[in-house]
């Protein structure tokens, strides 16, 4: 479980890249790549190891104003936990 105070960062092997062909973001890692939907791209762009999950949610709130904060926080945590299981996001501590 990632705590809301955790500071997620991309794993060392993963790199975000803007994709001209689709206008979205790709997450690249050895031999693989993930085509990210706009929300996933926005979340991962904010995973800099400095911001907490709460700070990321607050930032996203500006773009997803229609979504209540608790729901948005739940979505973000679920996504980050999946990425952590895949070894693509790390949350130190």
């Amino acid at each position, binding site marked *: 479980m990632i705590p809301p105070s955790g500071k997620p960062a991309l*794993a*060392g*092997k993963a790199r975000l890249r803007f994709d001209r062909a689709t206008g979205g973001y790709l997450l690249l890692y*050895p*031999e693989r790549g993930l085509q990210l939907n706009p929300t996933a791209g926005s979340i991962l762009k904010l995973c800099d190891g400095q911001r907490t999950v709460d700070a990321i949610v607050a930032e996203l709130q500006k773009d997803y104003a229609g979504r209540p904060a608790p729901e948005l926080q739940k979505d973000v945590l679920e996504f980050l936990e999946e990425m952590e299981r895949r070894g693509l996001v790390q949350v130190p501590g």
Partner: protein
Amino acid sequence: MSTAPRPYTLVAELTYACPLHCVYCSNPVDFARRHDGLDTGDWRRVLREAEELGVVQVNFTGGEPLLRADLEALVEEARRLELYSNLITSGIPLERGRLERLRRLGLDNVQVSIQDSRPVESDRIAGREAFGQKLRAARWVKELGFPLTMNTVLHRENLARIGEVIALAEELRADRLELANAQYLGWALVNRGALLPRGEELERARSIAAAARQRLQGRMEVVFVVPDYHVEFPPACMDGWGRRFMIVSPEGLLLPCLLAHTLPGLSFGNVREQSVADLWTSSPGLAAFRGEGWMPEPCRSCERRTVDFGGCRCQAFHLTGDAAATDPACSLSRDHAKIEAARAQAAQPLVEFRYRTARADGAPAR
């Protein structure tokens, strides 16, 4: 003609030269007749043109890519193009200083091949003393902050030591472990009698790998690749012919897979003469097995045709003489008995290796 799909990965085979003599090398058996045809400028252009076409990853491989003095320049160009770059190496000849330089220039990942968990057994496969240097190279990779992929090709001789191989990968702190059973093409086909494992050996290894994948989740990605000879249906070779992978051979041929240029009757253009985009969209060799139009029965009416794309063309040719046949690895192929016969031979006592070498007798150079 159908429009070409978007390629995502460029496999840049910088040279077929290699200090090792691995008995299952995936280079063509006649590699010694094929010479490096591309200079630094050519390769830079290939990287640029591939990126324009949609490629986002590049694997620098060979042979041994470290033998190219211009590897640094190519890594730098890949970084400039924001390509995710992966160096696929034997770890020989590598010095820490060079690896450090590659790190600074923006190389993203290093894959080191380790043939076995034990020195004597590993060197026996490589045909020379290499194990100690490989471990040193793998440690440098992690010390310098790179992600490390460890690749071990599995076969009858080392399959029983898969637990030790996994332990070695953990000790080296690998981020990804590829436990890839040999695929019986190139040199591995020459040595199939000595390498192909029995089904029960494979099953045991598969369950050990599955347990490790579970245990190491989030820390180390564990990939286990089954040999085509032990499946009911073939995998999607290269994810489909000319679909997501583009290979540029040391000579400059633009290929859909590592061995497509060993198939007779197909012509693949050279990047020295045509642009990557032209070749990708309209080389006759790439068009030959794209889509479904070429498929024979039982593929043509099979619901798996969009999953496995008819399997491996090279395997079809080398086992049946017809590159357009259904992959004999498929249990529905009329040539599947050839696979079953090879499997039956896996019960035979050990057969001698022929090492990858330019020499006709297959003896390792010492």
